[in-house]
């Protein structure tokens, strides 16, 4: 294992191959700087959790990875998010955000299925790539629904509207939708905050399975959840990445006082 040169050499704390990495990354909503000098390594096929009090910039950082901020005027990235193995800076203006979003999918806080059928929801990512062959779509949709542990429940009603599913099923549908086009990374923004404990447990199980194939970056405000499902954890505070480390170490032996205060529930 590489020896961290300093307390803040985050990349050195990752033993696996990196899938992505932010370097001196800053983000601005207009004049309002929401992220400051963030260095976050993302290990390939591992779960990296972002924790921290509300408003510390977790969603902002997550949404930078698929260039969601490009949708709104006045937003500005500074610094780099390198995506491997290409080794491109994915926030650079020369990189097409559409390509990035095809390679890096996202699951949102509240389940947000399209008002379309279950099948159409899962197939949409393939359709935007121009896939029209019914057989390919059917095969991929089944694979994605199996991957999201939803196939058995919906296989007989693929043409039902997605809204008729329960909240937990809708969120798994959204995961299936994100999985269908074989993304390299999936971003999760508090995916269980709108769900009951049972649905939450099933999503957590699912994330553990998905990480065999896909790199996962997940925002959670639930520290137990981060401890249960992630391999690496980053603690953020006021737009800065305060501490990054292996989850088993960070929760047991935090190196910074702020981290310790947060995980012991003394603030936030």
């Amino acid at each position, binding site marked *: 294992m590489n020896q961290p040169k300093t307390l803040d050499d985050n990349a050195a704390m990752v033993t696996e191959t990196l899938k992505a990495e932010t370097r001196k990354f800053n983000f601005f909503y207009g004049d309002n700087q929401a992220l400051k000098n963030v260095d976050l390594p993302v290990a390939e096929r591992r779960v990296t959790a972002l924790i921290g009090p509300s408003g510390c910039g977790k969603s902002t950082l997550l949404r930078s990875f698929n260039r969601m901020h490009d949708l709104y005027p006045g937003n500005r990235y500074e610094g780099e998010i390198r995506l491997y193995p290409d080794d491109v800076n994915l926030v650079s203006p020369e990189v097409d955000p559409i390509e990035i*979003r095809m390679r890096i999918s996202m699951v949102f806080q509240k389940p947000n299925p399209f008002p379309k059928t279950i099948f159409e929801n899962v197939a949409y990512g393939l359709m935007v790539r121009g896939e029209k062959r019914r057989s390919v779509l059917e095969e991929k949709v089944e694979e994605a629904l199996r991957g999201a542990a939803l196939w058995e429940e919906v296989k007989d009603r693929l043409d039902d509207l997605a809204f008729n599913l329960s909240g937990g099923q809708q969120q798994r549908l959204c995961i299936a939708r994100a999985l269908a086009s074989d993304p390299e990374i999936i971003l999760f923004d508090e995916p269980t905050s709108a769900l009951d404990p049972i649905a939450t447990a099933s999503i957590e199980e699912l994330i553990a399975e998905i990480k065999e194939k896909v790199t996962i970056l997940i925002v959670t405000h639930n520290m137990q959840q981060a401890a249960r499902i992630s391999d690496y954890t980053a603690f953020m505070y006021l737009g800065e990445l305060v501490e990054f480390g292996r989850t088993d170490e960070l929760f047991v032996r935090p190196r910074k006082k702020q981290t310790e205060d947060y995980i012991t529930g003394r603030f936030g």
Partner: protein
Amino acid sequence: MAETQGPRLRTIIARNHRWDLIIGTIGLLATTVGVLVLMLLFVDLVIDGWQRLTPDFFLNFPSRRPEEAGILSAWVGSALVMVVTAFTAVPLGVAAAIYLEEYAPKNWITELIEINVTNLAAVPSIIYGLLALGLFVYILGLGHSILTAGLTLGLMILPIVIVATREALRAIPVAIREAAYALGATRWQVVSDHLVPYASGGIYTGVIIGLSRAIGETAPVITIGALTFIAFLPPIPFTGDPPAGPFDWLFSPFTVLPIQMFNWLSRPQTAFHVNAAATGIVIIVATLLMNGIAIWLRSRIRSKLKW
């Protein structure tokens, strides 16, 4: 010992409730007055005109003899003008709304356009007639035709379609747009695969409300020179000698229901006034029917959308 404050509170509450009662009564009165007046007008029309609503009334051309006169040329004219109106207002209105909501950069030019669109809805319809007379009839030489009338009314209801479409687009949650963008959809894919289908209920409603306003319009149609007495139908495509082209009907002279009604009302013989009342019933029923369809369509499409 402390006194209970119950009785004192109860007087205050009773006083507060009195206002509920007063405002409620005033509101009820205001509503009934409006509805009652409309009902009375409609009942009056029906009493005057219903006996003329025979099949012949719909199948006859106007005539000098009131009992033989009918509204064939008028309702066909109205229907054809509505077709042109819809074909003008829908593509222009929906495209403009999509541009303003989804594509337009937020700057002062966009703002200026937006203010103008809203103000256009308030322009008196006769002004559209004058504009159309100058532009479509004299400059473009489209004649006193169905095409001119349809284009004019299409422009007139354009603001209604634009505003309705924009509202329907805005009602779509950000989360749905983001879900589509997050899968790598381009702006056009988001618009065509999601926004327009989900907004379609609102768009239909806007179009139908616009058309139901256009069908009763008289002033602009008179201004562009619709005939008041017309005893022939526009040419049916591929019939006649020589055969009419597929679009010849667009350039045909025409009349519409409200003009026919106005024409009959201005005659001295009361028998014509009966015809006018019957025509009024037809216009009102057509309008109510369109509004009914709009409500039905909206609720049908809404039921598939949960937000």
